[in-house]
């Protein structure tokens, strides 16, 4: 038999590289030795991660291995692949898939070969896996001492009352615990079954189906049927041309909405709530102005916030104001603008779907509020998009189908249905999906390490229909661009007409107000008509021309200006010359009529000036200049962008190369260790913090500071740990000190887990309550939640030790190592 760490040592370099690639958390930070790698690979968080990432078939295979071995206490026990194939009820056709799943589980070091031939090994679950899967793995109860004997079960079942059969059927495939009915025929049946030994009373209200009975009922299988992936061919498919077209129109719409938001907020910024964020009423107003639902408005607002296109201006009464970054964004081409939106969306942890929901205190979460961050959000988006990509071109699964596929891919962490639906909805709004399917541009978001923007922009650029420069003007004052308007045409229509409908074409209506807006912006009737005529295929119809001329005729007949105060009199003679007096120049006097002067100065200044100077001679000043009243547009400085897409891939080295380099380092450490073992006969014993503390408590006062990142320092510490301490308790000296032991906390826990899984004894050095080291020979039972449960074999007592008190762990039966090992040189990773 081979323990987990032995198996790991026995892996080829390629296999180790594969492991590190598939479980990247094992390589960060780089482990110093293979033993610490093994320890890390069996730690609960790492296993949790690894299990969260496997698909349903691999999980099922691991479960089957765990379930099949749940009853055994012999560390040499293992299951063969064919046992697993049979246990999951796989048909001949499914066999290879189950074997492949087992191979994956082995690659991931979730199960490991513990003996048998290399081609058909006996597999055992990695230490810690069984604990992680929980007590009723595959719906089978844990083995219990009073379970009926497996051989006797068929006989018992044959005698089981018919009424009890339904009860047994209900519990067969788990969960194995059932609530005991209080009365009625079912209660009697349960009583009967308990009497027959086919059920076991767990407590007053519950009964348990014993493992042996369940296995008999299941024909020895652990699973009803092998897990199979959902068939992608069942998904609805969309015409790729339609996908690209809808992607393009949705992308264009999203960009237009964000631009609309910036324009809207630039003119009338909404206030920032005291606790941060955008008020419900302001959101509603924004939604109405953009003509979208509040949910979509929240999404648009969040998108602008993520890109730092808007932010809190930080003033005393704070407002959400577009930033200078917004101007940069607005200056980009449509595809580039969209590429930024899509990249922001993919990378942000902010979850816009939370806007409007209530938090724990019952308050409504506002858009742009502080509570919208969800760290899993980018991963979920990635997972959903990746799934759509894998489903093939044009596949448009609904939220339920996506969730089902995700449940297959990562059965241990299935996202909630509404989160999946939210991703699909937002992706649809944004145009990352078209008609529910992934367009070419959307694939750019699949690689989290690359900068997606160039590919996004290129994808959208290819999907956008060619721009049309034609305008059909009609007598009912509408105009139609039969396609996507060119930028120039769009600008012209934007300035002079109201959009009535969008889609494949754009229809606009010219109204007196829309034409007036164009005139307000500085156009003249002739300019406007010439511009329209240059685009209009059939000329400008008479009613439209009349409308423009009529609007121009009325335009500017009223003039308005700004003044702070005025002077008025019945007698023009009194005002004569007042405005032109140079002494009044700072008053900014303007003569509006013979009897009216307007002044730029505040009223009090005007009054005191008039009093001081009296009346003055006459002159003329130029004025009456038309002010094209440009709306005040506010800006504040851009905050540090929340998404920094300018850095390309985060690591300089591709992951595969890094993993290969790391394996090299580990191998050298292993060789060094082997070399040390042959000369000194001792393995590296690394001292954990507890031992350190114990050492420090000793009288010798040896400086024990150590740099954990440095392998050299660690080895030095190991050397110290091996030195017999003065005044240490007898227990420390009493036991032998074999090699293969460890004092590194993680490694120590790994060894304990391994021992618990393999039912082997270890020497356990524990820091006692007075700071003294004690050594016991123990059989670890369970390592969980920072505590180690062990059976002290000498005293035959079960004790629980806090993990931080474990100073060192050494397997029993390792060669005698009661000598101080030589400090070794170890390469630092």
């Amino acid at each position: 038999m081979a323990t987990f760490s032995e198996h790991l040592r026995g892996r080829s370099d390629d296999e180790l590289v594969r492991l590190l690639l598939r479980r990247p958390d094992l390589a960060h930070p780089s482990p110093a030795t293979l033993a610490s790698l093994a320890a890390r690979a069996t730690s609960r968080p790492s296993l949790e991660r690894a299990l969260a990432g496997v698909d349903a078939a691999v999980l099922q295979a691991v479960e089957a291995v765990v379930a099949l071995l749940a009853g055994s206490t012999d560390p040499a026990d293992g299951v063969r692949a064919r046992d697993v194939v049979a246990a999951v009820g796989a048909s001949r056709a499914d066999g290879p898939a189950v074997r492949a799943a087992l191979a994956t589980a082995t690659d991931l070091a979730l199960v490991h070969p513990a003996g048998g031939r290399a081609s058909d090994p006996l597999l055992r679950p990695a230490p810690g896996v069984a604990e992680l899967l929980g007590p009723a793995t595959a719906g089978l109860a844990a083995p219990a001492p009073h379970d009926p004997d497996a051989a006797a079960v068929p006989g018992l079942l044959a005698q089981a009352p018919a009424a009890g059969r339904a009860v047994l059927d209900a519990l067969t495939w788990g969960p194995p615990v059932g609530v005991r009915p209080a009365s009625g025929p079912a209660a009697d049946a349960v009583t009967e079954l308990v009497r027959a030994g086919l059920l076991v009373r767990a407590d007053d209200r519950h009964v348990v189906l014993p493992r042996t009975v369940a296995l008999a009922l299941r024909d020895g299988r652990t699973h009803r049927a092998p897990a199979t992936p959902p068939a992608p061919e069942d998904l609805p498919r969309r015409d790729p041309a339609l996908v690209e077209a809808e992607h393009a129109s949705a992308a264009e719409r999203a960009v237009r909405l964000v631009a609309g938001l910036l324009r809207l907020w630039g003119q009338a910024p909404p206030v920032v709530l005291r606790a941060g964020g955008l008020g419900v009423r302001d959101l509603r107003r924004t939604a109405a102005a953009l003509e979208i639902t509040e949910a979509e408005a929240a999404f648009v607002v969040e998108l602008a916030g993520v890109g730092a296109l808007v932010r809190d201006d930080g003033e005393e009464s704070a407002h959400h104001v577009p930033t200078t970054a917004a101007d940069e964004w607005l200056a980009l081409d449509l595809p580039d603008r969209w590429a930024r939106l899509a990249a922001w969306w993919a990378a942000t942890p902010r979850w816009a779907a939370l806007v409007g929901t209530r938090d724990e205190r019952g308050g409504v979460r506002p858009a742009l509020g502080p509570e919208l961050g969800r760290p899993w959000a980018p991963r979920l988006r990635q997972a959903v998009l990746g799934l759509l990509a894998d489903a093939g071109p044009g596949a448009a699964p609904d939220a339920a189908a996506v969730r089902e596929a995700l449940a297959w891919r990562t059965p241990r962490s299935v996202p909630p249905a509404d989160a999946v639906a939210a991703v699909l909805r937002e992706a649809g709004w944004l145009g990352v999906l078209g008609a529910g399917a992934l367009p070419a541009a959307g694939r750019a978001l699949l690689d989290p390490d690359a900068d997606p923007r160039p590919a996004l922009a290129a994808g959208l650029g290819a999907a956008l229909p060619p721009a049309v420069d034609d305008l059909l003007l009609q007598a009912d004052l509408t105009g139609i661009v039969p396609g996507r308007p060119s930028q120039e045409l769009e600008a012209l229509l934007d300035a002079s007409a109201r959009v009535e409908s969008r889609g494949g074409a754009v229809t606009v209506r010219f109204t007196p107000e829309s034409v007036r807006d164009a005139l307000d912006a500085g156009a003249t009737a002739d300019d406007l008509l010439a511009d329209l005529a240059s685009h209009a295929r059939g000329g400008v119809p008479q009613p439209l021309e009349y409308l423009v001329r009529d609007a121009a005729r009325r335009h500017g007949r009223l003039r308005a200006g700004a003044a702070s105060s005025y002077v008025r009199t019945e007698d023009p003679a009194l005002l004569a010359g007042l405005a032109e007096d140079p002494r009044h120049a700072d008053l900014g006097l303007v003569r509006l009529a013979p009897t009216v002067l307007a002044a730029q100065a505040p009223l009090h200044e005007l009054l005191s000036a008039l009093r001081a100077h009296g009346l003055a001679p006459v002159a003329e000043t130029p004025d009456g200049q038309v002010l094209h009243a440009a709306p005040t547009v506010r800006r504040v400085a851009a905050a540090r962008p929340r998404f920094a897409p300018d850095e390309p891939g985060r690591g300089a080295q591709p992951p595969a190369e890094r993993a290969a380099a790391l394996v090299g380092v580990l191998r050298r450490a292993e060789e060094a260790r082997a070399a040390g073992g042959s000369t000194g006969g001792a393995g590296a014993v690394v001292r954990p913090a507890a031992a350190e503390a114990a050492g420090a408590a000793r009288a010798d006062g040896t400086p024990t500071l150590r740099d954990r990142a440095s392998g050299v320092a660690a080895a030095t510490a190991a050397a110290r740990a091996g030195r017999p301490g003065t005044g240490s308790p007898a227990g420390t000296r009493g036991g032998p000190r074999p090699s293969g032991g460890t004092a590194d906390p993680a490694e120590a826990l790994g060894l304990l887990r391994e021992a618990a899984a393999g039912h082997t004894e270890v020497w356990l050095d524990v820091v006692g309550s007075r700071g003294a080291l004690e050594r016991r020979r123990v059989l670890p039972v369970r390592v969980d939640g920072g505590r180690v449960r062990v059976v002290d074999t000498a005293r035959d007592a079960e004790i629980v030790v806090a993990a931080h008190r474990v100073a060192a762990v050494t397997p029993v039966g390792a060669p005698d190592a009661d000598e101080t090992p030589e400090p070794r040189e170890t390469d630092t990773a």
Partner: protein
Amino acid sequence: MTDGPLIVQSDKTLLLEVDHDQAEACRRAIAPFAELERAPEHVHTYRLTPLGLWNARAAGHDAEQVVDTLLEYSRYPVPHALLVDVAETMSRYGRLQLVAHPVHGLVLHALDAAVLAEVLRSKRTAGLVGERIDDTDVVVHASERGTLKQALLKLGWPAEDLAGYVDGEAHPIDLDTSGESNLGTDGAPRPWQLRPYQAEAADGFWHGGSGVVVLPCGAGKTLVGAAAMARSKTTTLILVTNTVSARQWRDELIRRTSLTPDEIGEYSGSRKEIRPVTIATYQVLTLKRKGIYPHLELLDARDWGLIVYDEVHLLPAPIFRMTADLQARRRLGLTATLVREDGREDEVFSLIGPKRYDAPWKDIEAQGYIAPADCVEVRLTLPERDRMLYATAEPEDKYRLAASAPGKTEVVKRLVAKHRGEPLLVIGQYIDQLEELAADIDAPVITGGTSVTERQRLFDAFRAGEISTLVVSKVANFSIDLPEASVAIQVSGSFGSRQEEAQRLGRLLRPKGDGRTAHFYAVVARDTVDQDFAAHRQRFLAEQGYAYRIVDAEDLEQATEEPA
């Protein structure tokens, strides 16, 4: 991307490029399910509405056909959501059916038990249905047939009414195409034939059971009614808008069918006759005294086999309620437009029935049955004094002030002079303005105060060519046949209603003997609400495909030399 003539917008409008080669084929293909919203010169806009799609379903089209049509003619990929929505909407029609059960009588039958459960849970259907027979059937109180249909439509599950109709009291009615009852001025019979579209409309109605026929003014809706009566051969109740219209129906029926004057009764303010064919006005039916409708029993006075609603878009709301009780009788609605200013199109759908026939104005004009028209808006600049008066007037007086601006008289005079000798109508709303105008151009005036006899006399004289110019008020708007009027001048209208404009233009669009172009002038005071209302009405005209121009009153003569 194909090169089709149709652009499908995501807001469910369809843009049809009319100059495209396939435009005509496409128009025919989409007409059954899409409502024509506007038809200006280059691009016609259709809209997909639930009612339109259900109309199509009622006419036997299915969602697949609709989707195929859209895909076939669309230039760009059709938004997927829209196709899904079309299929979804269309699948809702007919999942519930009203059927006559041999044992339980009128029964609401569901093809889908869940739908029935859903509608029965709603408050809207409470009290309208009786005992539940099984999962898919529930008894309906016969008197609530109409109300239930209305409620179901509101719930989005329009029921298909398969419960059939009572036969009604039989009465022989035939079309008299020999012309025996339609003698010409020389005393010889003038044989005639139904126009093809009239026959199609009558067929469409008859096969559908009940429903609405949409034909432009002047396209001969009365004859469609007569043809339907000849199919039904039962006693018939005809509901019309006013007395003059009632008389015209009566005359037309006598001329075109085997009915004799004795068989046709008039039920109006002045006469209360109930005969096998009775023509009643909406007004008398909706007359309310002491909280009750005294004339409502007319509806039950005979066992009517057919009820004809003239100008169904004007049907007053109380008539809807009464109509709800008449669901067992065949109902024919006649109208020029399904657009109702009050937005009650859905009640027409559920209570009269789905659209059974529709022909756009332009088509019938192209077939030569109605005259082409030239529409001109004349803008009159108000003199300084009037502008000041207008500016300072109370808001409620502004329209009246603008509409009856004195300067309009001069413009009308010039237009009358220009079209001297042609049959010409001056239409307005304000009596004193009309009387003043009438005095100025020396023409008789017809207002609400003019007696029916006098009206008839004047109309007859106008028809005979004895009078060439007539000044009429609002009363002339509806259902008065003024053939050969080739020029109309509108000086004021009632706050810019679309259907009013349709009516007025309809006055002019009767086929002209010599194929002349009809002229429609609207005289409008510049920079006033008059102009705003006019803009609203004109939009409707332009949307209907009538070219219109705007000229300044000062440039009137030269601008109207060359008709557009």
